[in-house]
């Protein structure tokens, strides 16, 4: 009899423990609906893009480098970020692509101030004239502040590769979004952003032999430009327009970049193009 009572007690305690651990098991959850809804959740985003990148440079024999891009981004509810970015330069004479793996963490403080940091490792394969800045490792620290419809961001990044460089990007964006445009489940996002880029210029000389580098430095000096220093480098304008319905989104992004006077002196011209993207955010 005693053993039976003991057994009953054990069963009751297990049921009680289970109901406490699993709120779905209990008939009435102690949490209110609003508490449950305000809880963040994980987000997975897959995107495929095409860009017509026009790079008007006299140094290269081509001036257009269109590319296909694939991105996989994961945003954890705890603030962790992981992404995989792949770019294929399909117009290159040999198989040319680059891939980057990124891991990071972001934390929102005081509702509209976000601090984020990430590390990225990049691999480039193929025709090196498509490579641009040859970095292998990137370490970044970003501060973003959102005020009403204004987005302000300061991005610091240290790039290590053929040369070591530090960049500072100052962004100012307008974020306008409209919900329920064509259906209850859609939105339109318009987020034009202007970005001023400052950085070291060691990457400009990364592929030059010492004697050529010396000649370029002298040439720039004759035009009152200093070399091997931190300086203003470009102004970039992004104008993305996003339409999202349910788990599917589409984006058209027009961009334009004006290089600094010093980079223009090195026969670099404006960079512009359009980026078409389709992205999918499955429920996980």
């Amino acid at each position, binding site marked *: 009899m005693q053993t039976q009572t003991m057994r009953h007690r054990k069963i009751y305690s297990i049921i009680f423990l289970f109901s406490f651990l699993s709120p779905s098991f209990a008939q009435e959850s102690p949490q209110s*609906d*609003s508490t449950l*809804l*305000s809880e*963040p*959740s994980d*987000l997975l*985003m897959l*995107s495929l*893009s095409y*860009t017509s*990148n026009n*790079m008007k*440079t006299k140094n290269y024999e081509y001036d257009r480098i269109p*590319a296909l*891009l694939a*991105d996989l*981004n994961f*945003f954890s509810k705890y603030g962790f*970020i992981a*992404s995989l*970015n792949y*770019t294929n330069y399909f117009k290159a004479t040999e198989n040319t692509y680059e891939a980057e793996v990124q891991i990071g963490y*972001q934390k929102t403080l005081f509702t509209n101030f976000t601090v*984020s940091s990430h590390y990225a490792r990049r691999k480039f394969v193929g025709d090196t004239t498509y490579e*641009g*800045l040859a970095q292998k490792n990137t370490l970044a620290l970003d501060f973003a502040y959102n005020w009403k419809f204004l*987005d302000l961001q300061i991005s610091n990044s240290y790039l290590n590769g053929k040369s070591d460089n530090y960049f500072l990007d100052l962004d100012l964006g307008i*974020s306008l*979004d409209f*919900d329920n445009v064509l259906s*209850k*489940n859609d*939105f339109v*996002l318009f*987020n034009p*952003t202007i970005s001023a880029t400052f*950085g070291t210029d060691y*990457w400009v000389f990364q592929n030059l032999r010492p004697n050529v580098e010396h000649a370029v430095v002298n040439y720039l000096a004759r035009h009152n430009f200093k070399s091997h220093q931190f300086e203003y*480098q470009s102004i*970039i304008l*992004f104008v*993305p327009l*996003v339409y*999202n319905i349910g788990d599917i*989104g589409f*984006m058209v*992004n027009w*961009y334009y*970049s004006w290089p600094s006077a010093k980079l223009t002196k090195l026969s*670099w011209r404006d*960079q512009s*193009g359009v*980026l078409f*993207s389709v*992205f999918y*955010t499955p429920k996980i």
Partner: protein
Amino acid sequence: MRFTKIIGFLIILSFLGLQSLNAQIQSKTKVVQKPLVLKKKITKVKSVPIATKSKTILKSASKQKMNARKQQIKKAVRKSRITRRPIRRR
């Protein structure tokens, strides 16, 4: 023989008695069940506004959930830096 008759008579009586007793019990339970049925009906009537209320709560909850997801996607689009990807330092 008499003893057997008495036993037989008793068996018949008990059989009849059991039947009547059974009928009585059945009728009693029917009487008892009646208010139970009524109670059930009452609870059903009571549960209608609760169900409507829960439906409204669920509707608003799913709407809130949808809006929260929209906000999350907007943030992800801005954070993913897809827009920046084509711009390269040459």
